[in-house]
């Protein structure tokens, strides 16, 4: 992987492994039956639906594959995947719709 030497890559893997295990162990191992306060649960509930869309938004809007230029085909394919995922609640259908739409649009020359 460009710009990353082997030692740093392994350091990332190990530190992420330790950090992830610590998060997963936290309230189960350390705190036993103590309940999380309501406000904390209220925030934690939204971590996935906040961080995951934030992460991919720039990649959909300004993809590296087009040199950072806005690509209508990728935006349309992402919106279609979003709609399919929302309606079907099915992860596989979502991926198939998104990748399939992009392939079709690219084949159509868009």
């Amino acid at each position, binding site marked *: 992987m460009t710009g990353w030497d*082997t030692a740093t890559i392994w350091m990332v893997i190990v530190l992420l492994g330790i950090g992830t295990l610590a*998060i997963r162990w936290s309230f189960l191992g350390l705190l036993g039956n103590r309940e999380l306060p309501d406000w904390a649960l209220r925030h934690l509930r939204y971590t996935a639906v906040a961080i995951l869309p934030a992460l991919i938004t720039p990649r959909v809007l300004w993809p590296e594959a087009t040199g950072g230029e806005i690509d209508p085909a990728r935006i349309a394919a992402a919106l279609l995947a979003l709609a399919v995922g929302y309606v079907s609640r099915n992860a596989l259908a979502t991926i198939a719709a998104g990748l399939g739409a992009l392939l079709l649009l690219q084949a159509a020359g868009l």
Partner: protein
Amino acid sequence: MTSSTSAYLRGIRVSLPFLLVVLPFGALFGVVGTEAGLNLAQVMGFSIVIIAGAAQFTAVQLMQEQAPTVIVLASALAVNLRMAMYAASLAPHLGHAPGWQRVLIAYFNVDATYALSHMEFEANPAMPLSEKVAFYMGTATVICLPWYVVTWLGAVLGQAIPPGIPMDFAIPVAFISFFAPALRTLPHVAAAMAAVILAISLQWVPHNLWILLAGAGGMAVGAEVERRSTTR
């Protein structure tokens, strides 16, 4: 058959449909990681040591974008923060298991093992501890162990994917498939929309810190919308 064995087998049975989701995701990580330039041992390292799909994809994407190491770590761990909530809600059921078992339970705590087990425990709170642990390990057997195998398959067979396929789009679409089905209430939608708007408007923030800011902002909006809709 002891009651623990039957609980273990029940855990296996309820998890089987989820293989349809787990298998392609693991394989996709093998493909994407290899395309990003990780070698086989490193790709397997991600899936065995971290064993958290969304965080693995996050780390690989940010490494490709040459983000600083600290940002790679902080962002991938932020993606996993939801698991603190999983740990907290499993604690009343599994919190009294022996220490080594709780470490193992923590290691295998992913979306599907958590969701299936929590549902089972809430439906049968009187289940003895040993059966609850056995049920959980049944779900982990089906959800987690194949994760390693399909990662390896994806890494090894991924090179056979023809070059015309836009694999760079695989990560965004995989992420959409993680969160789109979760947009089931107004606070969830509000959190996602706020995070997207913040991600776009905070692109100028150096060192990819916009990810954490947009994530935290989205979480705060989701929590606030929830608070207002429940106090009314």
